[in-house]
């Protein structure tokens, strides 16, 4: 089948399919016709001169081809260091990750990259040692402070080229009998003020307001207060325990036999029944008064919470109070504001080929499950009024459309989302979405009900937990795929379209 003929068929089919769905409440998420980006088969991104457009469907890498496409963004510099990426100003940070292995090295050091000359990024000094790895690492910069946090390790990066080690926060050793892999921390995020670090699974925060007084850093375990508010087999247990003043979170702090010493159960099954996942990647509203947490409905937890949910909690008083929720997971989760309203972009992770959890398959018609492994689309949710939070649209690629699933199967496509990055959370224009075999995809999200792809870069699969960094002053995106660290220039026609 020629590309042109197929595109035409895809376009008609996609429109017909999309027109048949509307947003519904429930475990699956679909989009009403007006809310859905029109997937016309090929990407609507605005390519520039010299760009190498995808040859076929949006997100497709045809059999026999090696991904080497770009449209609207150009590669201007690179380094052969692949890993998670963060940045500030002319500094980028890369924490390497072994893509080939089942798990990353636990404590990979972080490389400091000088990108003052984006065409010639260079490593500065020795890599920074970090401890107690988290899936992502994060940088927060305010007028008062600039910090980088990876796992338990905090660096002061006011002098971004020369981070200064501040110290390590205490993180308890959550354990399960017979499981040697650390289960905590899993992922983390620093609030916008840079005063608290939030860790998952569950929700823990560490107050680092007094950055240079380590003794003042206080760890607070919010798992129990949240679990008591979340429907599931654990709820009555935590409600009863909390009410009796015998919280399992206090019990966890005591050594055996007085307490559990942070043993989360006696088996993975027991653990899943006591502790809801609650969160993976947290994020916050503009003034840090709300935290957004999405679960993944994966593994044993899926048995009790089969539909992924993202929840909104009020952090202004203790205990944190559940204010609202929307459908959809939170492996990657980013809050943003645009047009005077507040939104979340949130997604699960993994897709076809099957992650082994529910046989995710892009042939599955919309609406699809939202559990772990069903990360073919991301969700945009209006969270302006938490009590009325609702999904407003999905981010999709044509390669993941059900009508194109035979193509996706043939090409072993795994265009699934991991993390995303918003250019400016307080005044958002675009989301750069780490889309697996479809590369990095940039969506115009100024109208969140109709996200439209504006650019893409696919020279290989982005590193799973690379979030990336956008240098607004120079319209540069720092990111990493399996081939290494890359500096991408947003092309003028895309910058113009996005209003950046």
């Amino acid at each position, binding site marked *: 089948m020629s590309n042109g003929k197929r595109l035409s068929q895809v376009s008609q089919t996609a429109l017909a399919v999309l027109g048949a769905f509307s947003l519904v409440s429930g475990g699956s998420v679909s989009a009403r016709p007006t809310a859905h980006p029109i997937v016309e088969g090929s990407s609507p991104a605005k390519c520039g001169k010299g760009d190498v457009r995808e040859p076929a469907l949006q997100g497709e890498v045809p059999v026999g081809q090696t991904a080497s496409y770009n449209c609207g963004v150009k590669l201007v510099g690179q380094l052969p260091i692949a890993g998670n990426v963060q940045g500030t100003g002319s500094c980028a940070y890369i924490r390497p990750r072994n893509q080939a292995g089942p798990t990353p090295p636990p404590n990979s050091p972080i490389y400091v990259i000088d990108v003052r000359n984006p065409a010639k990024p260079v490593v500065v000094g020795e890599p920074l040692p970090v401890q107690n790895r988290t899936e992502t690492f994060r940088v927060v910069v305010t007028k008062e402070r600039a910090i980088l946090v990876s796992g338990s390790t905090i660096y002061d990066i006011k002098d971004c080229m020369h981070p200064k080690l501040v110290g390590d926060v205490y993180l308890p050793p959550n354990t399960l*009998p017979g499981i040697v892999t650390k289960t905590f921390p899993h992922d983390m995020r620093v609030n916008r003020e840079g005063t608290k670090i939030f860790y998952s699974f569950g929700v823990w925060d560490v107050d680092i307001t007094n950055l240079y007084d380590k003794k003042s850093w206080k760890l607070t375990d919010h798992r129990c207060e949240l679990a008591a508010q979340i429907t599931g087999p654990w709820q*009555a*247990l935590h409600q009863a*325990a909390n009410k009796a003043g*015998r919280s399992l979170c206090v019990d966890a702090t005591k050594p055996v036999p007085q307490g559990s010493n942070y043993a989360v159960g006696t*088996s993975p099954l*027991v653990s899943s*029944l006591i502790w809801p996942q609650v969160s993976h990647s947290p994020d916050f509203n503009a003034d840090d008064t709300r935290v957004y947490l999405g679960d993944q409905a994966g593994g044993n937890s899926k048995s009790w919470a089969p539909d992924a949910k993202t929840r909104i909690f009020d952090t202004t008083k203790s205990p944190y109070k559940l204010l609202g929720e929307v459908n959809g997971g939170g492996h990657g989760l980013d809050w943003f504001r645009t047009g005077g309203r507040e939104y979340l972009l949130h997604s699960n992770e993994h897709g076809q080929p099957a992650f082994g959890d529910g046989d995710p398959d892009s042939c599955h018609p919309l609406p699809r499950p939202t559990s772990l492994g069903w990360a073919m689309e991301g969700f945009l949710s209006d969270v302006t009024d938490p009590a009325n939070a609702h999904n407003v649209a999905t981010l999709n690629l044509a390669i993941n459309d059900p009508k194109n699933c035979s193509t996706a199967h043939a090409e072993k496509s795994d265009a699934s989302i991991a993390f995303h990055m918003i250019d400016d959370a307080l005044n958002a224009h675009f989301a750069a979405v780490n889309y697996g075999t479809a590369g990095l995809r940039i969506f115009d999200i100024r109208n969140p009900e109709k996200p439209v792809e504006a650019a893409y870069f696919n020279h290989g699969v982005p590193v799973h937990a690379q979030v990336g960094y956008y240098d607004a002053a120079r319209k540069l995106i720092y990111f990493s795929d399996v081939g290494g660290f890359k500096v991408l220039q947003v092309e003028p026609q895309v910058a113009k379209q996005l209003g950046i």
Partner: protein
Amino acid sequence: MVLKSKTLGALVCTALVAFMPGTGIAAPASTPITGTSPALCGAGDRREPGIQGEVPSGQTASYNCGLKAIAELPFVGAVAGTGNCVYVRDRGPGMTPDESKIHVIDVTNPVKPAEIGEPLAVHNGSETLRVAVTAQRAVMVSGSSVFDVSDCLHPKRMGEIAWPDTSVPGVARKNLPHDIRINREGTKVYASFGLWEIDISNLADPRSWKVNDYRCVIAAQLQGPWQEIHKQSIEAGRSLCDDATRKAPQGANYSMGGSALQASLLWPTFSHALDFNADDTRLYVGDQAGGTSGIWSPNTKMRIIDLTKKPYTIIGEANGPGHGLDWFRTGGREYVIHSNETGTGGLKAKPETARRTCTPYPRSTALGWGYEAIVSDVTNPASARNVGMAHIAINDPAFCDTRIASGRDPTLAYHLIDDPLDAHFAAINFGDAGLRLFDIRNPASPVEVAYFNHAPPVHAQVGYYDAVRKLIFMSDAQGFKVLQIEPQVRKKLGL
């Protein structure tokens, strides 16, 4: 002791309190409290000097009324028996029933009981040891050790039950089995805490003895913080009882929780002693509302479980505990006598517990409130209800000051029914008040008919009644004793 009018007034008020649904157990209206025991003493008996159950300060208990000691041996322990054979199990290391020994006593001549052979080593202690005898078989079980006692003087070890080692991190003491009971047919052994069942129908083949864990199906039927966890996991085909059988990290390997608190939130106790109806189709269990579990189930409950089909189903409940629990039938109806354990002294003498018995009825029946035994009519499980109470005056609110002055702590532990299928009396282990016999033929008004108090009975001594010779075999802190029921008591009881 002469009762003052004020005291009598209090007693009248107490007697007017009827059984009420709720958390506590009220004194039955039909059981007036007279202060002194109504037991029928015979010639030469040494009546208690004060009120019922009292051992005045400075005195050593040496009272008997309606019961005479006719022989004794220096074996102190839990007692069970059959025919002319009695078994006394010593305390094991650390005063636990683990790894202890059972003495076989020939009581053919009751005034000259004699030990036969070497004591039997038993393993994995249970609080009581039990004997079940039918026309087809005679079985004795202690902990995991199973004996054929068809030749009762020469028990034959048949094997060991493979009780799993349920555990809580950091707690060295084994917690399974805690207590056991053999069904009336002698084909199954049940164990607490929780509910475990072992089919020993094929007594000669220990390999066929399969352990069944019913904790989860029962927990899913019990209100509490654990209920949703068990309901949902069973519904999903992921029962925690199956999970427990798998080794870590695939399963819990019988670990009950990451801590005692976790364990209490996941696993309701719901049982201690267990008993059955006449044809083993119903099981009776009661919790104790103690320790951390007491936080989640502060009000004790005795529950009735249908054993005729699976999953085993709770078909009724009544207020009250089940540290000691015995089913019986009388007057064509079915009853359970059930009680808790320990009292003011058993809880390490917390100052606030000393005046517990001053608490008016209805009062708590939680662990540490083992002051009376409750009698419940269970004929219709769906309408099971408390009907009477076996109690002694020393534990009544009106005499709490006397009790405190005595320095004694008479509390219940276990009881023995003479014949569950046609009950006449309950012999109740009443701690510092000794062994007390109550006429239970009118279960709404149990009346004490005899007592024997030379020392507190061994906590878990259940005892054995030889109906042919009207003998009770029991053990107190001083040793094994053979008690003869005196004629006036026999006559009173219709034995």
